[in-house]
């Protein structure tokens, strides 16, 4: 059992490890269809695979090969399990009708060799109704895993005469220090490039960078380079933020282009070009308060209200729109000592690659006295790259009318301490407990029903107590009936077992009943009790039964144990008659 549980627990982990699967789309294939051989390799760690060559399959001609990779992570039994996979698809065209086999072939994964299983294939004569999936010429393959969709008008030459290169093209050759320059990397080619795999990105000193754009497919466009017509596709666009002056070399990208002509050919490419001249910022005419912002910005502001009561707040926003080194300068600050308490600004960015878009600063101001107050000075200074000058945006002089505080404004602040002062940071938690409402848990309803049960018990007991207090006679009769029934049950059980305890139990039941109901003390003799019952004007027949039963009990006391059982059933019957008699008497005389 334990082993089975262990196996169950580790089952997901046991499944991991290098898995090499090979499959085909069809085992029986018409001559006008195509065969896709899929090789899937997966592992729990990153894969290092030597690209396997397409196996030679008799009766088929190799068409093309595509590859894709994927990774995933899942949580199994509280621990994360990763899976990395690579898939190769080989497309073949059938040449002749017959039976053949996809042979077993070797795959080298993470330095180890794995062999695939052979697969038997039958090629049959194609019919007119079979879909013409492969009605394509060798020069225009249709299956494109990268989704790049080669244009129909492709007029590239053959492999021998082709030219394919990777060029880095800065948007502008000259920038000022700090201004982000965007460098686009284009694949220029007059050949048929089916895919491009980016392998490396070599950096140089003197800049910070971020990815501005990276398409997921090759979108070709017409272009000319050195007087020659090419097709070009964007590979990547980088934002380069220079932090030194002088000549700057943009990162060099390296990758492999997969060219197709008669067969496939991989061509390793490295980007060329990408030089930028970085000019220093001028020191003359640099305004006070400049904090390093460089960019082409449009600046605007807004003020939430100009009339308010003391205790209320104003929100002022300053918005920067455009391209610049947003990550290299801090928020502008209000001049101090002007009758307002100013919070640290909240910054909201909507930026692409951290260089282009909008940034808003939100300041909360609390007036400290009533009256007409001028807003403190707020200015933003930046170096404008386009005009090569320093520019300053100053908040216009604005008068705020602050009225006397009222009770509501005081409570507004009390109730809204966080609006709009600042965002609360993340909470530090090493463990998160899964939320479960108490109302969906067993113990909660157990406690609720226990409380309700206790309440019911209290009500019953209280009703008895009230009865005892208000109607003691009635209570005594009820109690005596209960006692009689309790002992009768015990006596019946003893009689059924032919137990000698029947007589003592029955006698005790009857005495207790008489004591509770008629207040006949237990120390009285049987004769005295019978006399007392006669005084109570109870049915003489019932008294006679009682007398007879008590006599039987006394006789049984001195009998040998074996003889006691002889009349047991008869005496039990007599006892039941007595009880029924008393119940009848109670109902007729007292209604109980």
């Amino acid at each position: 059992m334990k082993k089975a549980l262990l196996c169950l627990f580790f089952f997901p982990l046991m499944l991991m490890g290098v898995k090499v699967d090979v499959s085909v789309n069809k085992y029986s294939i018409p001559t006008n269809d195509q065969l896709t051989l899929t090789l899937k390799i997966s592992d729990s760690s990153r894969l290092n695979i030597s690209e396997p060559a397409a196996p030679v399959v008799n009766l088929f001609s190799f068409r093309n090969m595509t590859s894709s990779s994927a990774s995933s992570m899942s949580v199994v039994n509280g621990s994360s399990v990763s899976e990395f996979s690579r898939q190769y698809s080989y497309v073949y065209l059938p040449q002749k009708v017959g039976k053949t086999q996809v042979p077993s072939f070797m795959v080298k994964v993470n330095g180890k060799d794995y062999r695939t299983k052979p697969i038997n294939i039958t090629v049959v004569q194609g019919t007119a109704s079979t879909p013409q999936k492969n009605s394509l010429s060798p020069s225009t393959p249709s299956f494109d895993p990268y989704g790049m969709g080669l244009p129909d008008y492709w007029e590239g030459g053959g492999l021998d005469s082709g030219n394919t290169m990777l060029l880095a093209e800065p948007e502008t050759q000259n920038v000022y220090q700090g201004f982000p320059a965007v460098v686009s990397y284009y694949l220029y080619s007059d050949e048929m490039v089916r895919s491009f795999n980016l392998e490396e990105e070599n950096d140089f000193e003197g800049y910070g960078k971020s990815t501005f754009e990276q398409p997921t497919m090759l979108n070709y466009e017409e272009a000319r380079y050195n007087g020659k017509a090419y097709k070009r596709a964007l590979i990547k666009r980088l934002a380069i933020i220079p932090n030194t002056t002088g000549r700057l070399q943009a990162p060099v990208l390296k990758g492999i282009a997969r060219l197709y002509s008669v067969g496939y050919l991989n061509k390793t490419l490295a980007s060329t070009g990408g030089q930028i001249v970085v000019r220093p910022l001028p020191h003359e005419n640099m305004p006070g308060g400049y904090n390093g912002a460089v960019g082409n910005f449009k600046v605007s502001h807004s003020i939430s209200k100009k009339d308010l009561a003391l205790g209320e707040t104003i929100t002022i926003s300053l918005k920067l729109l455009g391209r610049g080194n947003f990550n290299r300068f801090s928020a502008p600050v209000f001049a101090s000592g002007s009758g307002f308490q100013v919070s640290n600004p909240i910054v909201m960015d909507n930026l692409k690659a951290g260089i282009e878009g909008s940034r808003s600063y939100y300041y909360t101001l609390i007036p400290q006295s009533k009256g007409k107050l001028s807003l403190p000075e707020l200015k933003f200074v930046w170096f404008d790259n386009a005009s090569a000058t320093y520019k300053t945006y100053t908040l216009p002089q604005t008068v705020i009318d602050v009225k006397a505080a009222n009770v509501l404004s005081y409570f507004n602040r009390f109730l809204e301490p966080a609006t709009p002062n600042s965002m609360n940071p993340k909470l530090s938690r090493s463990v998160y407990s899964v939320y479960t409402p108490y109302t969906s848990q067993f113990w909660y309803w157990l406690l609720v029903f226990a409380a309700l049960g206790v309440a019911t018990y209290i009500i019953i007991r209280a009703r008895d107590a009230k009865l005892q207090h208000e109607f003691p006679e009635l209570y005594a009769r009820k109690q005596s009936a209960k006692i009689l029934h309790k002992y009768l049950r015990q006596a019946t059980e003893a009689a059924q077992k032919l137990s000698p305890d029947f007589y003592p139990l029955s006698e005790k039941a009857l005495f207790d009943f008489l004591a509770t109901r008629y207040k006949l003390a237990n120390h009285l003799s049987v004769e005295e009790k019978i006399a007392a019952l006669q005084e109570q004007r109870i049915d003489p027949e019932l008294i006679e039964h009682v007398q007879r039963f008590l006599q039987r009990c006394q006789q049984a006391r001195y009998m040998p144990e074996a003889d006691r059982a002889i009349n047991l059933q008869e005496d039990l019957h007599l006892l039941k008659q007595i009880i029924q008699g008393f119940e009848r008497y109670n109902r007729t005389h007292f209604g109980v």
Partner: protein
Amino acid sequence: MNKILLSLLTLLLLSCVLSAQANSISTSVPAKSKDIHNADFYYNKGVDYYAAGNQGLANLYYLKALNLDTAHKFARSNLELSQHLSTDSKLYPQRRFLVRVLMQVLDFFSVNRLAIIALLLLFCSVAALAWLLFYDPDEERALPLLVFVLLFAMCLGSFTLLGFKSYHQTHNKLAVLITATEQLMPAQGISKKSIMEVHEGLIITMITSKDGLSTVRLPNGQLGKLPTKSLAKVR
């Protein structure tokens, strides 16, 4: 009888402690795991999304945190600030002082807090009932009666509110606009002229969904239709 009661109470307490302990053991998961049903986890995701400039998802996760724990003051505060700074901030109603106080009091009583309070009030009510019923019959019963009536009324109120909040928690109809902008179309009629433009992060109440369009109620009470795919539901 007393022994039975005592045993029953001991058993109850023991089961309560064991159940709580078992719950805490079985439901603790490391902070890095995905999709944890926890208010702090949702709050932290909201903070991350807000820092990344994704106001729509930030608001969604703040609302998810508040759906689990209405007393989560950090999520409440960040959500209010996010609403205040949003383009559609004017659509959110400005509540009156007493209404805000009432809302804050109701928010303080999260489902689990309310469940515990209701249970305690039930125990107190039972105790008050015992006090009332076994009170000396010859003495004035006004005080125990008053205590019992008050506790019982509070207990009933707590359980009613608990039922309401639990229902609202499991049938939360709030949703957040997660696309940059959308045109709010009229809820009735066939007019294709939009009522207004709404922006990412707007919190709405979903009423119905049909044919890729959802009928929604904006915070200001305005009804309209928005594409369902541009909305993310809190639950």
